[in-house]
């Protein structure tokens, strides 16, 4: 980690340190609403990074990542609901289950040569199948949903993630920072380079001795594990889970937006993308509310248009351009 820090130039170090300090100090000055928006930004930066590792680095397109969010959320929520097992333990179950699902999807895809759009369809099918399955799992609440009770007496039990906005703010911030550090480590590691090779040209990668199947599988496993933790966060932050919401394909697409807009395959892409999209989305909703218009779908149309614009005009994302503009030589993907 120290080596990572030393590897960046002075200017970038200053910028990063400043940004981090500002975010850590934010709760002192910001109101609850702003903190909740920031929390959402960090959440999307985190799950976006998880998706970015698999797609941006290893080149495997998953359009069903909501599967891992949902499994992580339900696993930890159910453990709490039925057995009172807190999320700090529950997260391990969440990770295991999500990784198992990822292993199945990965094995089906990579072992049988299902690639490109076919693999993407496979991931969609897996997520949809699970969504419908959970609609019929009564012990998990079925389509009616699972609710974690708000218990006044438990406030302050940070180990059970029962707390106010500030608790979740710092947790989300920690997750987002952790995901950036992890991505930076991986991008420089042997595994990271294997992923890049697989992304660029599988046959050439094989000719260099890389076990392509293993590389792809490790990408799915890492990504699904990371995403599951986001699911745990989601469960204890929102306290209610519905299969139709958490496994839905629009969720899968939603978590892809930040890394794509920010810069696929880059380390800061997801966080930059989240900082752009989430506030704008929220602002749009606030604006329409103020104008008295309550039309569902406005935010999504905005996101769709942004996606089209980015992929058309600046497909490598905002971050590479931004980095050049402010003179950060920074990190190479």
């Amino acid at each position: 980690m120290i080596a990572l820090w030393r590897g960046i130039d002075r200017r970038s170090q200053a910028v990063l340190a400043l940004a981090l300090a500002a975010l850590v100090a934010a709760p002192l000055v910001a109101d609850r609403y702003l903190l909740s928006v920031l929390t959402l930004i960090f959440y999307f930066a985190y799950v976006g990074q998880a998706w970015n590792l698999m797609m941006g680095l290893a080149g495997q397109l998953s359009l069903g990542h909501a599967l891992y969010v949902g499994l992580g959320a339900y696993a930890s929520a159910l453990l709490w609901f039925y057995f009172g097992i807190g999320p700090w333990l529950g997260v391990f179950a969440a990770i295991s289950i999500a990784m198992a699902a990822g292993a199945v999807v990965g094995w089906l895809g990579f072992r049988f040569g299902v690639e490109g759009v076919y693999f993407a369809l496979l991931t969609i099918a897996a997520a949809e199948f699970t969504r419908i399955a959970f609609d019929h799992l009564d012990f998990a609440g079925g389509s009616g949903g699972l609710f974690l009770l708000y218990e006044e007496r438990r406030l302050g039990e940070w180990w059970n993630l029962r707390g106010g906005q500030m608790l979740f703010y710092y947790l989300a911030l920690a997750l987002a920072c952790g995901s950036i550090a992890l991505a930076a480590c991986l991008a420089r590691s042997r595994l990271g380079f294997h992923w890049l090779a697989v992304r660029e040209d599988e046959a050439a990668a094989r000719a260099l001795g890389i076990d392509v199947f293993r590389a792809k599988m490790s990408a799915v496993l890492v990504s699904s594990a990371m995403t599951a933790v986001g699911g745990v966060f989601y469960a204890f932050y929102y306290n209610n889970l519905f299969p139709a919401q958490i496994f839905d394909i629009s969720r899968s697409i939603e978590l892809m937006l930040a890394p794509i807009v920010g810069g696929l395959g880059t380390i800061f892409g997801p966080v930059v993308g989240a900082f752009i999209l989430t506030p704008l989305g929220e602002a749009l909703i606030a604006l329409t509310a103020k104008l008295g218009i309550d039309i569902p779908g406005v935010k999504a149309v905005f996101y769709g248009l942004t996606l089209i614009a980015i992929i058309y005009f600046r497909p490598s994302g905002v971050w590479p351009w931004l980095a050049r503009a402010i003179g950060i030589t920074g990190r190479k993907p």
Partner: protein
Amino acid sequence: MRRLARSAVEGQTGQVRRTAMMWSIYLNVVVQGVLTGLVYGLMALGLSVIFGVVRVVNFAHGEFAVVAMYAAFLLFKTLELDPLVTMLPIAAAFFVLGFALQATVINAFIGRPEHDQFILLVGIGIVIVNGLLMIFGPDAQPANLSYGFDSFPIGTLMIDKVRVYSALAAVAIATALFGFFRYTETGTAIRACADNLTGAAVVGLDVKRLYAITFGIGLACVGTAGALMVMIADAAPALAPAFTLLSFIIVIVGGLGSMTGALIGGVLIGVSEALAGFMIEPSMKSMFSFALLIAVLVLRPRGLLGRRA
């Protein structure tokens, strides 16, 4: 004694009658499934043409279908025109839309990495479906045709008239399309592009224009299918992603690039969904289709997988 015997015989006859009834119920379900499946098949045909020739992964396929549904619904509501009639102008409009879309936006993406293309179409899909949500709201809107509840009684079967008409129309359009691709010059040229792109260019075919025509045809299929679909289902934005997935499932199960495959796949899926919905539970019917998709993706023979995704 005699009463016992009679009731035993009656019991047996009753059982036979019940079994016969069960069979005819199942048959009813299957026939409805076949008819609905033919409309699905037409929708999938559009995707097969687009995916198979232009090699564009149209993730907005279902969204376009729902637009057509709303178009037909509006025309019916305001001008009281039957979708069987409006499907033709809608098809024409969609052809123009497809042609324009391909020639302008999508053409720029042909050389680019695959995922750029998916993302573009996902974005287009999001804008379309949420645009529809904004305009029409989330509630389902039915087109209340005058014969909407009528059926043809055939033997023990009661087959909805709307399903018969829409299925016949779908078959008619599909046949016209077969004819186009096999017997016309443009159709043959398009098939050449699908077969061997470099060869087609070398022979002097205007690939760009042919692509645009193909995309137009593909969307025209979708438009027609959507117009027909409003006869048997209520228009709602929520249908869009389901239709997209359904089309992909059908195209993959039926075999990429095969038009007959799309229709057969459509019928297969239509029947299996109808049966699954009837035998297990309506809300679980898609599960079967997804499981089928996974099975086909994983197990399909190497030869089909060779196609560029």
